[in-house]
């Protein structure tokens, strides 16, 4: 009996769990990122249509998508939106330059970085229809990364870190993590407003099955509204997003 156990049952356990990073066939469902660039200071209803559509999308797709609401300026500066963030504008410029198509304007939605773009709105239903069409195939895609958020507080500081695992059978090179702090300003249309964007250093390499912890940064500002931290695993130039996750900031 002992001999049987010794020779027959002491092989390595087969790593066939798809969640196990050491399994070369491992994967996780990709969380789709939806970044909406809006301006709620302008009297046009277009940003409002989009924000309402995003609420419906969140209800439809739940944790399979994360949504961020970047506020950006509009031409002429006549209409002030006090939620405009310079870092959001820099990110918008990166996306816009990488796509190199159409005009700058709001509302403008980028999905998985520059993977997909939906611009403009004429009603809640029209923009919801367009977003659904784009998201439907994306939410069934898988990612070769998994990220576990690590958010802690120290006094007024919010410390943002993440554990990253490379799944599948290939190494990843030159990626980084982006964290965005979202504030629920009014519980209504401005409930996912991007208030801070910080980036990790570039991670030069992560081998298949390897797990690493990445420090992204510390935010020292004080916010009144409920905060959520979004973590994005992105390409070196920030324009492609490979995985994402949301975490409440307590």
């Amino acid at each position, binding site marked *: 009996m002992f001999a049987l156990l010794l020779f027959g049952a002491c092989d390595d356990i087969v790593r066939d769990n798809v969640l196990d990073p050491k399994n070369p066939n491992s994967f996780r469902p990709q969380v789709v990122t939806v970044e909406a660039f809006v301006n709620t200071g302008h009297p046009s209803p277009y*940003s409002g249509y989009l924000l309402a559509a995003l609420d419906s999308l969140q209800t439809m797709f739940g944790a399979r998508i994360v949504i961020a609401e970047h506020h950006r300026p509009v*031409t002429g*500066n006549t209409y002030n939106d006090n939620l405009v963030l310079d870092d959001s504008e820099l990110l918008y410029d990166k996306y816009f330059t990488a796509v190199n198509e159409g005009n700058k304007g709001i*509302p403008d939605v980028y999905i998985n970085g520059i993977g997909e773009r939906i*611009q*403009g709105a004429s009603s809640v239903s*029209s923009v919801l229809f367009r977003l659904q069409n784009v998201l439907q195939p994306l939410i069934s895609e898988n990612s070769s990364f998994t990220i576990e958020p690590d958010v802690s507080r120290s006094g007024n500081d919010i410390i943002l870190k993440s554990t990253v695992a490379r799944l599948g059978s290939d190494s990843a090179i030159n990626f980084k993590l982006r964290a965005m702090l979202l504030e629920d300003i009014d519980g209504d249309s401005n409930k996912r407003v991007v208030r801070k964007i910080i980036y990790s250093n570039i991670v030069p390499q992560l081998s298949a099955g390897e797990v690493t912890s990445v420090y992204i940064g510390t935010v020292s500002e004080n916010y009144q509204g409920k905060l959520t931290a979004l973590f994005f695993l992105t390409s070196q130039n920030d324009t492609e997003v490979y995985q994402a996750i949301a975490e409440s900031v307590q």
Partner: protein
Amino acid sequence: MKYLFASLLVVLLISSGCDPEKIFGEKKPPEVGEIQSDDADLIVMPLDTVRFWVQATDPENGTLSYDWSKSGGQFLGSVTGSEVTWVAPAVGGSFKISVKVSNAEKDVTKETRITVQSPFAPFVRITDPADGFFAVQWENVPVKFQASHANGIAAVELHIRDTLVQTFAGHPGSDYEITWPVNQDAGPAELKIVAIANVTSAAGADSVQVTIEGLVPGKTEMETIREY
């Protein structure tokens, strides 16, 4: 004397390259006027009857022969006289009528064209964008379509919500690509292409339903730079 005449003839033949016309004088072709018809503007309806004729003389004082031909329609009766009767085809288009006038040695061909009006509206089919397309304000959207008519297309018009946006000249061939500057109000809209035929000014149209998505122009890089 007999030898002298024969020698002269040989010298003449050699110097003229053996061309008898150079020796005995060049034969002249018929003198033929332009084709005339009893329809002054040469625009008729399908199945109309038109008389064509030419005036010709033979400088050689011989007999002239006539041979009429056409690229469409039918001739009634003889086609070997100085005039013919032509019946226009049932379809519209531009048709060539020609006549070859010959004397004993040479011939001259004259031709004219006659337009037969097509009673039909131009054919128009929008291939791009498709029904249900979303256009974003302030973009330029390419619009592709086919437009044709037997008499050719004089102009094509782009209409948004029944308002004329722009007119473009027609051209040979049926494939068109124009640009729609999306500067209309946001909301559902009918995009319509109207093609206007040459000659008859008949209009044909096709349309698709699109939605114009509103966009507030964002701050440009120059504006951002100026602020800093």
